[in-house]
């Protein structure tokens, strides 16, 4: 479809839909996350069968990963792919099925998890009918993406697209293999694998969900939106090539680092450790390619809240991809495994890298989707600082709590007996649970600020193209935000 100017008319309705749904799920998921943090500090905050920590925690992870993050990823890919291919999406119908189907799945996930229907596999808790629906919608997305690539009017595919291709393919593979189960009834099934083998496949999935839901698609967003915001091309195309192929090849091997000192065969654990350590190189390749893109544009980082988010996001990406390989080393893992250090590690990546990059992406797209400018740069700045402060307040106490508990578990008296009972280690970290909840509250307050800012932006804009304006043209003075 092309407009009068001869330019293709892109489908932005699906992008608007995913941007809004992502924001709503983000808010819901983070409120639920705060509740989970409060429950750990104050057990009185657990309510009855439906709202205790065991049911709340998977709702938090599913809402923020599949509702918020993937919502932004769908929005960002539909926004970016059409422009990078200079063609409208392959099928508007598939786009609609993707949007409504996906959000229906998130609703079904939330309801079924509250009711206690779970497979207990972390980040793959949904029961089999929802898993089937998820696979179908994912295939719809894949057909739409590949159909668009096939019809593209730009010869080469830019680096962002590579990362999105890797996401589409790998998530399909992981989801299908890990979700294999034999149903007992409509909402109960037993895993096709048992014991150690079930654990092996689950963490092959679980680790690569981090790799291909929280890393590659977010890198794609970074590759597309950071150069747009900075007004500079990506630092090095060669570095993109090197770190893309090495990242996707190495990532998939690292899963067994979740099972160190478990009954999983040693050879598999060793593969997991070795590839996890190697993963630091492609990860830092991506971080450096992003940060060095700002060479000559660092002055903009001082004033532009979006660039601040990208820069701090990339910095957290670098930190957590240094921390992760370190935690996969056997001697460190023997201390950190089963403690809050892992929780801190995950959140330095999830809040620092994933959420900040997603926020920046939304702040960039939303004014353009509603043909206006961002309502308030100042509020975006406030959001940035609240988010950063919240992350520090969240992650630091989790590190301290993790190391404290890890050391107390292994502490012995001079006669070799255990120095602490388990409950003493629980009591020792309670103060950090309280600080963490405060950090989460600060981070969440930033999302409320964003919600208000976005709402006012949409109010002052219009989804319809203003009369006389060219389709797809950026608002005249919207540079930066």
């Amino acid at each position, binding site marked *: 479809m092309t407009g009068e100017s001869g330019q293709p008319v892109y489908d932005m309705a699906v992008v608007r839909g995913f941007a809004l749904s992502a924001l709503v799920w983000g808010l819901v998921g983070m409120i639920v996350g705060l509740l989970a943090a409060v*429950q750990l500090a104050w*057990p009185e905050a657990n309510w009855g*069968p439906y709202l*205790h*920590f*065991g*049911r709340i*925690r998977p709702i938090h992870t599913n809402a923020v990963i599949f509702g918020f993050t993937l919502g932004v990823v769908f929005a960002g890919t539909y926004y970016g792919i059409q422009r990078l291919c200079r063609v409208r999406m392959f099928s508007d119908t598939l786009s609609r099925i993707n949007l409504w189907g996906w959000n229906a799945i998130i609703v079904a996930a939330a309801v079924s998890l509250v009711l*206690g229907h*779970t*497979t*207990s596999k*972390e980040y793959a808790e949904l029961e089999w009918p929802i898993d089937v629906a998820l696979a179908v919608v994912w295939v719809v997305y894949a057909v739409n993406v590949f159909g668009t690539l*096939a019809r593209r009017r730009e010869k080469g*595919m830019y680096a962002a697209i*590579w990362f999105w*291709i890797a996401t589409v393919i*790998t998530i399909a*593979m992981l989801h299908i*293999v890990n979700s294999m189960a*034999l*149903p*007992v*009834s409509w909402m*109960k099934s*037993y*895993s096709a*694998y*048992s*014991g*150690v*083998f*079930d654990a*092996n496949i689950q963490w*092959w999935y679980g680790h690569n969900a981090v790799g291909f839901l929280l890393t590659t698609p977010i890198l794609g967003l970074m590759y597309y939106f950071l150069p747009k915001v900075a007004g500079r091309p990506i630092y090095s195309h*060669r570095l993109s*090539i090197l770190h893309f192929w090495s990242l*996707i*090849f*190495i*990532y*998939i091997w690292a899963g067994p680092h979740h099972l160190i000192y*478990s*009954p999983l*065969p040693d050879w*598999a654990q060793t593969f997991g450790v070795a*590839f996890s350590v190697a993963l630091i190189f492609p990860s830092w390749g991506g971080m450096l390619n992003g940060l060095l893109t700002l060479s000559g544009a660092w002055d903009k980082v001082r004033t532009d809240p979006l660039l601040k988010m990208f820069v701090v996001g990339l910095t957290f990406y670098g930190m957590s991809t240094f921390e992760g390989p370190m935690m996969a080393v056997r*001697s460190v893992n*023997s*201390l950190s495994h*089963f*403690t*809050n250090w892992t929780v801190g590690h995950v959140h330095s990546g999830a809040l620092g890298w994933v959420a900040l990059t997603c926020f920046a992406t939304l702040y960039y797209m939303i004014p353009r989707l509603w043909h206006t400018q961002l309502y308030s740069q100042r509020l975006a700045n406030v959001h940035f600082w609240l988010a950063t402060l919240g992350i520090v307040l969240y992650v630091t106490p989790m590190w301290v709590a993790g190391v404290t508990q890890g050391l107390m*578990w*292994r502490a*012995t008296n001079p006669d070799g007996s*255990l120095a602490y009972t*388990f*409950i003493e280690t629980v009591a020792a970290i*309670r103060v950090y649970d309280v600080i963490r909840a405060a950090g989460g509250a600060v981070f969440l307050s930033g999302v409320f600020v964003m919600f208000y800012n976005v709402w006012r932006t949409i109010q002052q804009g219009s989804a319809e193209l203003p009369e006389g304006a060219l389709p797809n043209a950026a608002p005249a003075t919207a540079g930066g935000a």
Partner: protein
Amino acid sequence: MAYERHAELEGKWIRFSVYTFLAVAVGGLVLVIPPFFLQGTVEPIEGLAPYSALQQEGRDLYVREACYVCHSQQIRPFKTETDRYGPYSLAGESVYDRPFQFGSRRTGPDLARIGGKYPDSWHWIHFGDPRDIEPRSNMPDFDFLRQTEVDLSLTERKLATLAKLGHPYSEAQITGAVAAAEAEMAEIAKSLRSDGIELSETEARSEAIALIAYLQVLGTSVTELPPVDTAGSGNAGLVEGGAR
């Protein structure tokens, strides 16, 4: 130059996607496929029986309430862990565990060998309010498990499904699943009453009873540290103090 050839690849979406798939499939194949062939070699440890009907129902409740988000079932081969929890976990112990319940975070203690550690009545009181037993506990109370009757309408089908997946249940065990569960519940209710706990009709058939049945069997098939050379297991022997 390699980079020029890559420029050509960037123009071909099918070839690019196939290469991408190959790059991620290699690690997947090496890590995921061989264990399937190992599955035949890791036999259940001696004396390990599949869960009884009530234990399996209890296990499904353990999964439903997501106990694994706070309790691991995986004791590592460190002296400080085996001192605290008992013999380290073996691959052959979890062959009837669908799904596995190793867990990833110990907000509470490991439960791999909780079976037999406390009397049934301890668990009953603890589910009612963990702070009645340990004031510093941050575990939610699970009183509702004591007030809800266990649903046995799917028990027979559950065992039949597990039998299809290779769990050695006899035909009689499957068809007699509900009766066996009722009998086991009566046993546990009797033990609670003998400890002075008054049970209503509902409480005596409650979900908490099924969960107690599961917890009390956990890890009980291993009583002493197994030999270091365990076929198919990654346990390279006891590691002193946790660090290498």
